[in-house]
C-alpha cells in the first residue's frame, strides 16, 4: 500500500518531465520538417541553441534551486547586466580577465547572501526582495557606465580568445554546397553550462543540502521539526542562485561581448518559464534540473524557429513561451487538484 502510494507520487512528476521532453522533440522535429531546406536539420543548429542559451542554462539551474524552496529570484536578469558591465568596464581599465571573473563570482555570492538573509532570516517575501535586488542591479549597471561598452581583442586578448574558441566535435558534421566539410563545434561557455548542470543535478539528488532544499519546499514546518535549519538553507539557496547567475553572466558575456544597461531584460522571466515548463512546481518541493534544461531547450527552439522563418514578428517567441507557460501551469494545477482529491 505504502509502496504503491510513493510510486504514484513519483509518476505524476515524471509524467510532467516526459511531457516536456516529448514537447521538445515534437517542436524540434516540426522545425526540421518545416525549415529543413534552411539548414534546421544540421546538428549545428542544435549546438547553436546551446551556445546562445549557455548563460540561461546556468541561471535556470540556480532558479530551480530557489524555486524548490518555494521562493523566486527575479533579480537574475539585472545581475547578469551588472556582471557584463563590470567585466567590460573592468577589463577596459586594465584588469585581467581572470581577476575580474573572480571578483564577479564573489559579488554574486555576496549579493545572494544578502538577498537570502532578507528572505530567510527576516522572512520578507522573496518576490519583493528580489524585485529590490533587480532595481538595485539595473541601477548600479547605469551607475558603473551608461554607455554600451564592447569587449574587443585589444581590451582583453584572453577573454576574446575564450569567446572565439571553437571546440570541434568529432561527429555530426556535414558537407556544404561548396563541397567543404563543416565540423560541428561548441563554445567553451557551453562546456561550463553543462558542467554546472551536472554538478547541480548531483547536488540536488545525492547531497544532504540538495535533499534539504526539497524538504523545505515540501513543508517548511515539517522540515523545521526534522531539525533542519530552514533559515540557513533558504539563505544558501539564494546564494547558490546568485552565484550560478554570475557564472551564467560570464557565459552570457562571452556570447554578447559587451556590457549595456538594457542587456538581458526579461531574462528572469525566461528562466522562470523554463523551470516551470520543465516541471518545477512554484509552490516548491518538486522539480529537477533535467526538466529545466529541457525547458531552456524548448525556449531556444521556439526562438530559433522564429528566427529561421524570418517573416514572423519579433514578438512571437514571447507569446508562444507565455502560451506554453500557461498550458504547463494549468496542467500542474490539475495534477495538484487530483493529488488533493486522492488525499481526501
Amino acid at each position, binding site marked *: 500500500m505504502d509502496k504503491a502510494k510513493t510510486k504514484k507520487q513519483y509518476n505524476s512528476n515524471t509524467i510532467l518531465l516526459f511531457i516536456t521532453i516529448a514537447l521538445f522533440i515534437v517542436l524540434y522535429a516540426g522545425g526540421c520538417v518545416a525549415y529543413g531546406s534552411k539548414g534546421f536539420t544540421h546538428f549545428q543548429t542544435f549546438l547553436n541553441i546551446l551556445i546562445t542559451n549557455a548563460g540561461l542554462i546556468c541561471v535556470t539551474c540556480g532558479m530551480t534551486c530557489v524555486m524548490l524552496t518555494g521562493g523566486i529570484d527575479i533579480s537574475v536578469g539585472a545581475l547578469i547586466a551588472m556582471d557584463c558591465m563590470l567585466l567590460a568596464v573592468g577589463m577596459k581599465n586594465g584588469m585581467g580577465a581572470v581577476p575580474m571573473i573572480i571578483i564577479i563570482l564573489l559579488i554574486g555570492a555576496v549579493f545572494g547572501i544578502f538577498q537570502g538573509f532578507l528572505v530567510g532570516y527576516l522572512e520578507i517575501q522573496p518576490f519583493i526582495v528580489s*524585485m529590490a535586488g533587480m532595481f538595485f542591479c539595473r541601477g548600479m549597471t547605469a551607475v558603473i557606465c551608461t554607455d554600451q561598452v564592447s569587449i574587443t581583442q585589444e581590451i582583453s586578448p584572453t577573454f576574446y580568445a575564450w569567446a572565439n574558441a571553437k571546440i570541434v566535435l568529432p561527429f555530426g558534421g556535414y558537407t556544404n554546397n561548396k563541397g567543404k566539410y563543416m565540423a560541428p563545434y561548441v563554445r567553451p561557455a557551453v562546456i561550463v553550462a553543462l558542467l554546472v548542470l551536472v554538478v547541480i543535478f548531483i547536488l540536488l539528488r545525492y547531497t544532504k543540502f540538495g535533499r534539504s532544499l526539497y524538504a523545505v519546499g515540501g513543508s517548511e514546518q515539517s522540515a523545521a521539526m526534522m531539525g533542519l535549519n530552514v533559515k540557513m538553507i533558504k539563505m544558501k539557496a539564494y546564494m547558490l542562485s546568485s552565484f550560478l547567475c554570475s557564472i551564467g553572466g560570464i557565459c552570457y558575456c562571452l556570447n554578447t561581448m559587451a556590457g549595456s544597461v538594457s542587456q538581458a531584460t526579461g531574462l528572469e522571466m525566461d528562466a522562470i518559464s523554463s523551470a516551470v515548463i520543465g516541471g518545477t512546481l512554484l509552490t516548491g518541493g518538486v522539480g529537477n534540473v533535467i526538466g529545466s534544461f529541457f525547458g531552456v531547450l524548448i525556449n531556444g527552439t521556439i526562438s530559433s524557429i522564429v528566427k529561421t522563418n524570418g517573416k514572423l514578428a519579433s514578438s512571437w517567441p514571447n507569446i508562444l513561451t507565455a502560451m506554453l507557460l500557461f498550458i504547463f501551469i494549468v496542467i500542474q494545477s490539475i495534477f495538484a487538484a487530483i493529488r488533493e482529491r486522492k488525499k481526501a
Partner: protein
Amino acid sequence: MSKKSNSKIYWNKLKNWPLLLPVIALILVMAVNIIHDAAIGENPLSFFMISLRNTTTSGTILYGRIIDIINRGSEVAILAIGMTLVVSASAGTDISVGSVMSLCASFMCMMLAGYGVSSTTTLAMPLAIGLLCAVVMGIVCGAFNGTLVAHLKIQPMVATLILYSAARAIGLLLCNDLIVYVRNPSFAYFGAFTGPIPTPIIITAICIIIVSLVLKKTALGMYIQSVGINARASRIAGLNSRLLIFLAYTLCGLFAAIAGIVASSRITSADSNNIGLYLEMDAILSVALGGNSLGGGKFNLAGSIIGAYTIQAITTTLYALGVSTNQAPVFKAIIVILIVVIEAPPFKAFVRKFNASRAAAREV
C-alpha cells in the same frame, strides 16, 4: 505627570496611525527638496509654489512642481487602487499591470488609427469606441488573471507572469511592430488640460472618489478584507471568496486600462515597448509604502495613493538632483529594502526585545 502620560498617549496613537510611514516619507522628500533648493541658491519654498502660466498650446494652465508631481503620478495612483484590492484579497501581487497598460493602449490606438497605420490625424472610428475597446481589453486581461488565481488556485505572481511577458508582445503584434501615432486633439485631451487643470489629475480624482464611495457605502471593502484575512473562514461565513478574488483582479485590469489610456494619450501614441515599463513595480511599491501588508487582509486605500504620489515625488526629486533615469532604480531599491525591513515581523520582534532589555537595564 499627567502631561507626560498625555503626550505618551498621543505618541502611541501616532505610532499606530496607518499613514505614518507614507507621510514621513513624503515629509522627508519635501525636506530634501527644500534643502536642495536652498543649497543651489533658489527660493527654498519654490517646491510649493503654484502659479498660473500662459502657454501657446493649451492656454492658461496651473504650473508648479507639486502640480507636476500629481500629474505625472496619475498612472501610478490609478494602478495603486487596483493593486491595493488585489493585494488585500489574494495576498499576492499582479505583476502584469504594466504590460496590460501597454496592451490596452496599443489596442486602442490600433482601433483608432486602423491596422497597420503608423501615423494619423483623423480617427478611423469614434473615440468612444476606442476607449471602450481599451477598457474591455483591460477587463478581459484582469478576468484572465482572476480566473487563474481564483478558480485554478495558481499563485498570483505566477498567474500574472503569463500576461507580464505576453501582453506587451501581443500589443506589438496588434500594432504591426510599429509605434502608432494618433495625433488628434480629441484623443490628446486625456493627457492634456481641462481648463487650467491637467486632465490626468481629474481622471485620477474621479477614480479615487468612485472607488472610495463604493468601499464606504457598500460592504465590498469589508468582504475583500475578510477574504484576504482568511479565505476559508469567509467562505464558511457565506461569502463567495472565489468571486471576490476574481472581482479584485478584474478591477485591477480595468484600472490598468484607464492608466493605459492616460499614458498613451499623454504621448498621443502607443509605444508598446515603453508604456507602463516597470510601472507594476511602482504600483506594488506604493501599496507597500502606504502601510499595507503585502500578506493580504486589511488595506488602506488612502495610504496607497499617498504612497503612489510619494514615489513620484521621489522620482522627480532624484531627477532634480541630477540622477539619470537609469540610475534612479538604485535609490528606489534602497527605499524598498528599508521599508520592508522595518515592516518585517522578525525585525520588529528584535527591536521590541532590544527596547525591553534596555528598559530592564534602566530599571536596575
